[in-house]
């Protein structure tokens, strides 16, 4: 049995915003009955071009239903530019996390959203450009690339959990590995684009990186991290929850947080753990 959070169960048992909008401004469909889950997402804008109404229909398991419902809640009130920035991790976080093997449900949500926005704008969706890599589940190289870079995936198993690619016959495993290697070898553009940071910018970027890249995985293990101070290139953090008592905590600091911050903020950073 899957370990679903109470919020996933709640959104599955009492889903919000079920249905299809009549005369919608944008519609996106993702998945298929053969793949085992599918989502139809529609939205309507108000006079200020903010999403007034969002509705969904889902064929799929409990987490597919819950993530689609959560997405409609997150979308509401946002402009399309804001909605575009919703990541699959945002959807998972909204529900208090998803079992790793179910992350593909959140990715399906984000893809349907991309398609719905593209449908409104009358342009082809991002995924439409790619080449199919996984024949079993019809996943393109573009979709895999996006999942790898947005969620910092490093193994084929990760890619399968997030996109389903590679979960069928396994013939595409080599191709998936090549995409992972290619994406991970790319220098991050954010770093190159901002050579000199002000202290305020640095702190903001550290906070963002902790939020986006580090907290979600720590929280999966019941832990958390807090930024205490930044002095020059010294980043003072404190661990919370399960991390605070974990033997591997120091390891976590050095190998995970520091690498991430150096990669995404600036390479000079040194992480220090303080007890506060």
């Amino acid at each position, binding site marked *: 049995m*899957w370990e679903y959070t109470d919020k996933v*169960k709640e959104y*599955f*048992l009492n*889903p919000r915003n*079920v249905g299809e909008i009549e005369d919608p401004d944008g519609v996106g*469909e993702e998945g298929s*009955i*053969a*793949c*085992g*889950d*599918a*989502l*139809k997402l529609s939205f309507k804008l108000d006079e200020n071009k903010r999403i007034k109404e969002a509705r969904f*229909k*889902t*064929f*799929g*398991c*409990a987490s*597919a*239903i819950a993530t689609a419902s959560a997405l409609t809640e997150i979308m509401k009130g946002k402009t399309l530019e804001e909605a575009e920035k919703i990541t699959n991790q945002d959807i998972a976080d909204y529900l208090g996390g998803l079992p790793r093997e179910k992350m593909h449900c959140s990715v399906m949500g984000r893809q349907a959203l991309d398609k719905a926005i593209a449908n409104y704008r009358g342009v082809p969706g991002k995924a439409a450009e790619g080449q199919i890599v996984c024949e*079993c*589940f019809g996943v393109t190289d573009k979709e895999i690339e996006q999942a790898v870079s947005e969620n910092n995936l490093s193994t084929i198993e990760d890619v*399968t959990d997030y996109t*389903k690619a590679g*979960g*069928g016959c396994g013939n595409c495993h080599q191709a998936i590995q090549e995409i992972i290697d290619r994406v991970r070898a790319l220098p991050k553009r954010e770093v190159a684009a901002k050579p000199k940071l002000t202290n305020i910018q640095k702190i903001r970027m550290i906070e963002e990186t902790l939020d986006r890249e580090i907290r979600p995985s720590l929280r999966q293990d019941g832990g958390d991290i807090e930024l205490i101070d930044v002095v020059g290139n010294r980043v003072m953090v404190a661990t919370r929850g399960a991390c605070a008592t974990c033997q591997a905590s120091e390891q976590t600091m050095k190998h995970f947080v520091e690498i991430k911050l150096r990669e995404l903020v600036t390479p000079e950073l040194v992480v220090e753990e303080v007890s506060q």
Partner: protein
Amino acid sequence: MKTIYLDNNATTRVAPQVFEEILPYFSELYGNPSSMHSFGGQVGRKIRQAREQIASLIGASPDEVIFTSCGTESDNAAIRSALLAYPDRRHIVTSRVEHPAVRSLASFLATQGYRLTEAPVDNLGRLDMKRYEQSLTADTAIVSLMWANNETGVIFPVQEAAEMARKRGILFHTDAVQAVGKIPIDLRRTAIDMLSLSGHKLHAPKGIGALYVRKGTKFSSFLIGGHQEKGRRGGTENTAGIIGLGKACELAAQHMELENTRVKELRDRLENGLLSRIPNSRVNGDRTHRLPNTTSISFEFVEGEAILLLLDEFGICASSGSACTSGSLQPSHVLRAMGVPFTMAHGSIRFSLSIYNSEEEIDFVLEKMPGVIEKLRKLSPYWNVDETVCATG
């Protein structure tokens, strides 16, 4: 909330009489049956009795029964033993719908220099006997076919299949984990060389299984160690488990009639009730050659895990062959081998009953199930999209 347990092909409750029988062997009667003192010897006597009880249920003689730890161990021991017995033969024959205990082992062996043929089934899950017979060659070391399928309950004609193998001098093993205790088995009248069974599928505890090996069959032990089981399976006996399995087999023989009358009637009541109450539903598998306790029903355009979780809210326990419950991303290999369409395969639910189920429980499921399916169909983008899409009832 009351639990309505309709997942007996997954595991069963330990019968109260079995529980009572085994309790002393966890406490005061802890002796080792191999010991020379009478304190251990009395346990040895109970084990002899258990061996007789098991042999009696399947029409074997007691020395043809080897105790193991589970059905998977029995399957592994049988197949690996046959390969060792015929080292110059490199071919294995099974079917496409075997339990992972056979299927995964056979796939592994296929990477170790063995050739594997998986005989196909038709859309009712019936073994293609012609293709099966054609697959038997002088190079075939072992055939392993399940007696009854765990997902659909479909019964294979294993006796006929075993005769085809014997005619060609090929060892025949059957995984009878789901069949033993539910349908009459008399091995004396068959050409079956080896048979696997598992305790927890017939109201004995988990952690005990048995392998029948016909007298005169070459056998090499899977676990090499002490002289237990006449050297055919080393390791100190799971005394409580063995004694429990013996008692459970004795009870199964007494309840065989009940399984094939009352349990079957309850299953049919459930199955027919669901088919008539819920549109676009159908039974997977051959309804005529089937275990009396099992039904696999597909509900079109909805997904199995979601159905199970809604049933769970009512305390109803069942299982599904959908992708999200199979531990992989594809629906069960059994339903795929049968060519069940995707619209149906993802929404398959297996109910498996036991003698402990009541009519009230079945009626409760019949009352709740239509609402569950309707709720999910209202969420499904495929429902009502094309009302002409209609399944065979």
